[in-house]
């Protein structure tokens, strides 16, 4: 028992270390490009530097994402390996760095240094383009989410779109083109089978996924991520997973049909969330829907022939996609950056303030607050904290699913989507439309 607790503690330590690295780096770079450098430029050259300052600020989201994606992938792969080890009663990677913290960095370096092999008969142009096409959408696609996850921070507001949901869904259907290209261009039967499976799977599961997202948008009444997140302000009951505030409208005097409708709506939304999780797993080719890569049947599916940097890009994109769907779920269903129990959070923060004030006796709370406020935006910190917690919780849940469920057969996969999920999604869409009016 003791050593099991020890292992979980090690995992927690690793997670903290990596989250500090990831978000410290992202914050540091964003802050220096978005706040420090423009301020310096403006003070040095006055009005003439305004253009450069604004250009730098406009670059912040791009740089932040470009920095975040590889770091985050390093952490996610490591976390997944450690978690799978925990679930299968093993230890997992623990050699490179403290507790194996830098195992994935070493792996990445190894991949980058490896020879790149192009199979004979491969279509070189397509073969090279495939990883790029697979990877690009995950960078482009994450942009509109940035505003929502940073609590509409002024630096990230420009990338917000009034139709952000629509945009992400459109972009997220591109990677399958890359998969088919890669599978076809590598001149390998297994790759081709994997690619075709992937195409079939992506098309089948996109429909219930879209329907479940559309239903949530219907509930929220907007396609704007920031607004969807803001609509869930309040507490756990306001989250879309529990009907987007339907339960909070209930009072003692509400008519019975209103109560029934609200409860039904909450049930529908939980089902919607389950639907979303299933379809998202299929969209990002995770077990139990990892047929495109099915190691035991297809070697490695569409990326069998890839090595070196190209394989690393596939790998990067896969984990980034997983993170995106998790963040997407956190924003759409789990209240975005809002705390489940805001009262509790406020109490904790004021308690922490008091503690800090007691520790830094010489430094009054006011000065400390000023120092902190000049570096970060307190509202953003709380939002980002909750987004991080929710997103990574979902990522870990995906690891749990991977450790548990066996792979589906291809015909079961198709059956499941077309005969079960699509009808369910349609029923839920209609049900939510009516129930929303009744509440």
């Amino acid at each position, binding site marked *: 028992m003791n050593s*099991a607790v020890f292992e*979980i503690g090690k995992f927690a330590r690793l997670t903290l270390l990596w989250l500090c690295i990831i978000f410290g780096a992202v914050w540091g770079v964003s802050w220096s490009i978005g706040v420090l450098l423009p301020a310096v430029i403006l003070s040095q050259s006055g009005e003439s530097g305004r253009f450069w300052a604004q250009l730098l600020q406009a670059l912040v989201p791009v740089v932040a994402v470009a920095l975040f994606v590889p770091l985050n992938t390093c952490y996610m792969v490591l976390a997944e390996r450690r978690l799978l080890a*925990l*679930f299968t*009663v*093993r230890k997992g990677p623990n050699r490179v760095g403290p507790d194996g913290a830098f195992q994935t960095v070493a792996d990445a370096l190894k991949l980058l240094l490896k020879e790149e092999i192009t199979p004979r008969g491969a279509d070189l142009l397509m073969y090279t383009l495939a990883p790029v096409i697979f990877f690009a959408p995950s960078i482009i696609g994450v942009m509109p989410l940035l505003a929502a996850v940073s609590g509409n921070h002024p630096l990230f507001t420009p990338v917000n779109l009034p139709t952000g949901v629509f945009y992400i869904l459109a972009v997220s259907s591109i990677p399958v083109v890359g998969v088919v290209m890669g599978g076809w261009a590598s001149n390998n039967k297994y790759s081709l089978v994997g690619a075709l499976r992937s195409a079939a799977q992506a098309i089948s599961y996109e429909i219930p996924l879209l329907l479940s997202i559309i239903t949530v948008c219907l509930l929220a009444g907007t396609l704007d991520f920031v607004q969807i997140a803001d609509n869930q302000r309040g507490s756990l009951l306001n989250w879309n997973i529990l009907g987007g505030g339907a339960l909070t409208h209930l009072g003692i005097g509400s008519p019975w049909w209103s109560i029934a409708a609200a409860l039904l709506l909450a049930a529908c939304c939980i089902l919607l969330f389950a639907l979303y999780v299933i379809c998202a797993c299929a969209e990002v080719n995770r077990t139990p829907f990892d047929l495109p890569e099915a190691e035991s049947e297809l070697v490695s599916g569409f990326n069998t022939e890839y090595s070196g940097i190209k394989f690393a890009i596939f790998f990067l994109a896969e984990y980034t996609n997983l993170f995106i769907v998790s963040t997407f779920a956190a924003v759409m269903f789990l209240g975005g950056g809002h705390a489940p129990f805001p009262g509790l959070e406020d109490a904790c923060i004021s308690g922490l303030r008091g503690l800090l004030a007691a520790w830094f006796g010489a430094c009054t709370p006011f000065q400390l607050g000023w120092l902190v406020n000049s570096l970060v935006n307190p509202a953003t910190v709380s939002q980002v904290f909750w987004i991080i917690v929710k997103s990574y919780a979902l990522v870990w849940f995906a690891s749990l699913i991977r450790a*548990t469920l066996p792979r589906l057969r291809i015909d079961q996969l198709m059956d499941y989507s077309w005969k079960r999920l699509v009808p369910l999604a349609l029923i839920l869409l209609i049900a939510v439309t009516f129930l929303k009016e009744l509440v």
Partner: protein
Amino acid sequence: MLGMVGRAAEGFYQVCRGLWTVFKHSGRPPTTKEFPDVMPELPGAFRGRLALAVNPETGEHLCISCRQCERVCPDKCIDITAHKSPQTGKLELIDFKIDHGLCMFCGLCTEVCPTSCIINTSDFEMSEYSRGALIYDLKRLTLSQEESAYYFAKKDLPPPKPKAKPAPKPEAAGDAGESLAQQPSDVSQQPGPKAEE
């Protein structure tokens, strides 16, 4: 329709149960053996590299060149060179070769040996760069006195009797017939579970 809903609920329940079962495993201590850092605790009966023991007390070689091990070996990987000593008329061991590349560690040779001379040690790290290096000769096979004592204790073998007869050479064992009569049953008797090393 209702049946389908029922089956869906059942499936959902089963999936959740599976997830929970797997999740519970994270609370169990890992079974990983970190081999190069932590050597595994092998039982006394572990069949590792073969070796020839010496008498732990006197240090004399236990092999009496009876060639039983050579005969029983299914792989024929034991090669014994011995001759009759002109002075005593006893068998005298000249060389003893075991090809560990051929050996399958069945342990038959250790069971027939009348003097518990040939034994399986707990050593299993014996990778080499060539096949030739896997052929061990008498010098590499023979254990030191301390090692022999260690394995005799670990395997729970009866301590060998000192060679009583006027044996001028240590290898020329005088009481071959005697040991032949009593030893095999002792040797084949399995040593109990061990927790050593």
